[in-house]
């Protein structure tokens, strides 16, 4: 494998600054790798090598003329999940209804990356409108897990996670509404972080669950993820739900001593539903944290058992509202023929949306409709408050919460597609963070005998991403997981 691919983001930008490497060399290395691996992995929906090389050349010229300062992301190609607006680059959200949609604007996170001299490598595959846990709901094709191409990469940010894991991109952006960054990160053996709700602007992120969605980084190391988070986080007047708090210096805090931190382990998270191979790795990581000077204690998050039901009422409800805009009028697919308005709406949407999207719109519409609103949506809102309270109480006793990211190892393609409820249950450890709005990270904590990755999740109080990154980095360094040789 090309040695350039093995360099960290910090090493890449240092080499670019010292003129040891050109931006074109970096970009070419990644494009070559995409060419080599992506016909099997299928992480990308849209990638334009010629355009990218032109951008690289222009960037080099700007750097040479002193017009572009070298930031920690300058010259770095970043893969972007296809539910974020990239001006002039097709943005499909993994759906046929947006097959030819060309956004006339950049999402705030994209504009920030470009300002810093990062390059948009391409758009990655995802479950349609970010609804799914395996990327099998993409209207185009499934993405494969680089560790075993018969298995799913997870979802909905499966393309971003697989792309980073297969060395096709040094960094990627994903989005997380119920676990869609963390779960694919766990399944693909990479780092994935969901920021606090409101930490990163959602302007230009195609809305799924507006009170739950967050954009976040995927990377091969915690430090790389911190560098990407730093580049995109912060206030944005274009998103009224984006916090006005300034972000912390995430990458600068990495490496600080973590001894004395109190780690809470939720008892209810280690029951019968958890694969023992995952449990073993998590328990070992916990003893490692103890060796690093942390204290471990059991905590309770009593309403966790209701989290999936709560989430699968709230998220589809919000989705049913957010997806009402896909009506064939202002953008996207429109059913052909001279149809009356009602028929045009129904045909456009029924032909343009896939099955899971329709299912969630239906659930959402039902739980919001007159006569059912109180029993479902209002009830779920109250459950959400109880869950947020569980976390508040827990964080009075501990600084961080640690547990598994997923109850199972990456499953085979087709294994869970017949039973939607089974698929929903794989989100059991991740949805709680979205419901409470707290930040959470998944990082690899080992590989099983079958050479499948296991993800460990750390959760922190609101706006304490720094603690996640500090502990994540310390654990990563101490565990020093040796990744097996990739099949490709």
């Amino acid at each position, binding site marked *: 494998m090309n040695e350039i691919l093995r360099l960290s983001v910090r090493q890449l930008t240092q080499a670019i600054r010292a003129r040891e490497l050109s931006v074109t060399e970096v970009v070419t290395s990644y494009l070559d790798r995409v060419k080599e691996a992506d016909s099997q992995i299928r992480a990308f929906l849209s990638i334009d090598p010629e355009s990218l090389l032109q951008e690289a050349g222009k960037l080099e010229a700007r750097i040479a003329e002193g017009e572009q300062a070298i930031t920690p992301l300058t010259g770095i190609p970043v893969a972007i999940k296809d539910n974020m607006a990239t001006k002039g680059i097709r943005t499909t959200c993994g759906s046929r209804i947006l097959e030819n949609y060309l956004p006339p604007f950049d999402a705030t996170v994209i504009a920030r990356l470009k300002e810093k001299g990062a390059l948009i490598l391409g758009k990655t595959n995802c479950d349609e409108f970010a609804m799914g846990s395996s990327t099998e709901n993409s209207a185009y094709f499934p993405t494969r897990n680089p560790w075993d191409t018969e298995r799913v990469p997870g979802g909905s940010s499966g393309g971003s996670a697989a792309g980073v894991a297969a060395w096709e991109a040094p960094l990627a952006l994903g989005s997380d509404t119920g676990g869609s960054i963390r779960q694919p990160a766990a399944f693909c053996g990479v780092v994935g972080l969901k920021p606090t709700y409101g930490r990163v602007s959602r302007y230009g992120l195609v809305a799924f669950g507006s009170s739950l969605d967050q954009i976040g980084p995927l990377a091969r190391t915690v430090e790389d993820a911190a560098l990407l988070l730093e580049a995109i986080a912060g206030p944005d007047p274009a998103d009224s739900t984006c*916090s*006005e708090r300034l972000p912390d210096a995430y990458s600068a805090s990495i490496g600080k001593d973590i001894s004395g931190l109190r780690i809470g382990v939720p008892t209810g998270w280690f029951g019968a539903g958890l694969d023992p191979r995952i449990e073993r790795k998590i328990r070992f990581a916990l003893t490692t944290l103890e060796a690093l000077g942390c204290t471990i204690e059991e905590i309770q998050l009593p309403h966790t058992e209701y989290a999936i039901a*709560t989430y699968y*009422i709230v998220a589809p409800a919000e989705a049913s509202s957010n997806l009402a805009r896909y009506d064939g009028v202002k953008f996207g697919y429109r059913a052909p023929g001279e149809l009356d*308005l009602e028929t045009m709406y129904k045909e456009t949407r*029924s032909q343009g949306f896939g099955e899971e999207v329709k299912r969630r719109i239906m*659930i959402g519409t039902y739980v919001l409709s007159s006569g059912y609103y109180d029993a479902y949506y209002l009830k779920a*809102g109250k459950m959400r*408050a109880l869950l947020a309270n569980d976390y508040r109480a827990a964080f009075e006793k501990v600084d961080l919460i640690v547990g598994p990211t997923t109850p199972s190892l990456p499953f085979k393609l087709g294994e869970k597609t017949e039973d939607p409820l089974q698929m929903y249950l794989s989100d059991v450890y991740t949805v709680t963070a979205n419901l409470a709005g707290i930040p959470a990270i998944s990082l690899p904590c080992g590989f099983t005998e079958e050479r499948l990755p296991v993800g460990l999740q750390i959760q922190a109080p*609101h706006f304490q991403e720094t603690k996640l990154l500090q502990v994540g980095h310390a654990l990563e360094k101490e565990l020093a997981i040796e990744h097996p040789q990739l099949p490709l």
Partner: protein
Amino acid sequence: MAVDVTQVEKTADLAKLRFTPGELQRFTVTFQEILAYFAQLQAVSTEGVEPMYHALLQESPQTPMREDEVKPSLGPDASLANAPRTAEQQFVVPRVVE
């Protein structure tokens, strides 16, 4: 609360979705399973609990406001660029007025 095909049809109508009879039957079955799963929430007491819809409500209870100044916006060409049917700088829709 069980749900039958008529209710599913009504919901589809509200959501502006159309299902074939076969799809409707299959969908109703899945829907029933999912709603049955939601029923467990009824067992939890939420007496006196205020619903939570926004994670940062405590921190920013008011929607942030700005001065009412005109700022740059997309403009007609960019706004119409992805529309399936346009005419004279307008989105064309099926006739809605008799």
